């Protein structure tokens, strides 16, 4: 038996299916029918996949898959660091939007990312941030009239 990291994904799917099956027990027949009809085979398929991964040996030929393949020419340790960094930037951007709203978060995020992460000179960072802000303002706010909520900080201080 060989437990691989990818087996965790099968386990995750089984957990999701199990949660759906248990939740559906509390609903009316009409509401429960379709989720049950989906979750039960999902549980079985994910379980089968897990068993095959643990006891079925190496997957000899998976054949062609119509999917993205991640680059493999970067050192795994460096790759892991870069994945963590970009996920942190994305999470930071969402947090910033929550705190101060899009109109402030967009220029702050773009300038910070360009100057700190991409190590672009401050002049170019400033120019690109101005372009991004112009796109944001003229396209989304002015032309498409998208309404952006104020951030939590503005709400707290009553702006």
């Amino acid at each position, binding site marked *: 038996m060989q437990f691989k*990291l*990818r087996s965790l*994904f099968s386990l995750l*799917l089984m957990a999701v*299916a199990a949660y759906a099956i248990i*939740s*559906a027990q509390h*609903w*009316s027949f*009409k*509401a429960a029918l*379709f*989720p049950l009809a*989906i979750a039960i*085979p*999902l549980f079985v*398929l994910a379980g*089968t*996949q897990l068993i*095959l991964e643990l006891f*079925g040996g190496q997957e*000899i*030929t*998976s*054949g*062609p*898959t*119509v*999917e*993205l*393949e*991640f*680059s493999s*020419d*970067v050192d795994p340790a460096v790759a892991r660091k*870069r*994945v963590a*960094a*970009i*996920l942190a*930037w*994305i*999470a930071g*951007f*969402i947090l910033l939007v929550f705190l101060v709203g*899009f109109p402030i978060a*967009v220029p702050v*995020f*773009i300038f910070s*990312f*360009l100057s700190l*992460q*991409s190590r672009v000179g401050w002049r170019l960072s400033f120019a690109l941030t101005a372009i*991004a802000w112009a796109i*944001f303002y003229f396209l989304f706010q002015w*032309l*498409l*009239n*998208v309404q952006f*909520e104020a951030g939590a900080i503005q709400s707290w201080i009553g702006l």
Partner: protein
Amino acid sequence: MFDALIDGLVLVLQWKAFSLMMIGMGLGFIVGLLPGIGGAATLAMMLPFIFKMSPAEAFAFLLGMHAVAATTGDITSILFGVPGEAISAATVVDGYPMAKNGEAGRALGAALMSSLVGALIGALVLALAIPIVRPLVLSFGSPELLMLAVMGIACITSLSGLGARSQIRGFAMGLLGLLLSTIGQERQSGSLRFDMGMMYLWDGLDLVPVLVGIFAIPEIIDLAVRGTAIAGEKQPGNLQAGVMEGIKDTFRHFWLVVRCSAIGVFIGILPGAGGGVAQWVAYAHAVQSAKDTKDRERFGKGDIRGVLGPGAANNSKEGGELIPTVAFGVPGGGAMGILLGGFLIMGLTPGPDMLTKHLPITFSMVWTLVIANIITVVLCLAVLNHLAKVTYIRGGLIIPFVLFLVFVGSYTANGQVADLVVTFIFGSLGYLMVLFGWPRPPFVLGFVLGKLVETYLFISVTRYGFSWLTHPMVLVLIFLIGLVIAYPFIQERRSKNRENMGAV
């Protein structure tokens, strides 16, 4: 009939209608490029502006915008791996790898030319089919539509790879998509399902944050990990030559483009299915038309046929969707439902009147589709050279812009910060799926079709019990689904036999 056809053309070419069509096309061009903001949402935003227009002007404006958004959505899919429109997601699968291989120009040329061919076929079918399509649409009830949706999922699942394990992963992802589509209030009983006490989930998960997250975030992560431009270290070469090559590819694989256009028209005609389904079924058809396993292996890694199929289907389905909308007042898709609002604003009633009294207006729609697509493709071809250069800008400069567009696009779904969290969660899920070899396309199609499948199942069981399973058309579709599932295994066996014969 011929007079009405000419009258329709004259209506569109009048300076005011033509100018409004150009304005609509300009808006559609921008909206198509932006991830998340759908053509349907923009149609809805523009409805208030048509009150003072004549019907021909209003439809030139609205349809011009809608037709272009479907075409330019492919550009973002190819250049950044982010679907510009929900209906452009399938183009990512082969279009983006082509951009990474330094073939962005070729992919863009192929996407645009196949879109044009698809749009022309869609418009032609619309013009020819209006008098004869009624019996076809009326012969499809809920059981048949249910089986058609299942066939769509089976088609895309069969692309998960050869061998049992790949098929298991494909089906599991299709089921996960279907399961997540059940989040929120159940339509028949009103029960809340999987809402976890959050009001945000009462309406279910919106397609835009899910789709944008699951496709865009893994590509952005990959770009950040590589630390290079989208096209890596590859030299740009002659981009214009690449664009011309893409145009030639459309004619090299002309019958594939025609078949995928036919798929788009057919799915467009069926109420409710729409472009989200048409692109994937067309993609599946393109993959399954591969000669053997070796030929098939090129898909997903930058095969031009994977760009041509969805490109053609995306645009041909516009003509198909207009058929039931105009002829019966039954919208073929979400955007057509909004267009139906345009009919009502104009004081027009879809149905027999549109095929008799208002036939010139109906034909003006056909002409709008034709003219708008021709102008768009010609204009795009002129600037493609510059667009493709974007793939040679280093990733560090592109990433913050793409992230900004991705998250603003997602936010437009409901105008809540929770949309961004959903994008992030599904982005992370998409990353894990790619990392561990679980295919994303079946998940997306399952998610897109989930609500429809449940509704059709409910109506079928309520109306017919289980006897709907014996309907002749249902039996035919079940047989076809069996064939679709078995096809990868048959293809694998054939390939092995051929290899054995070669070895002997």
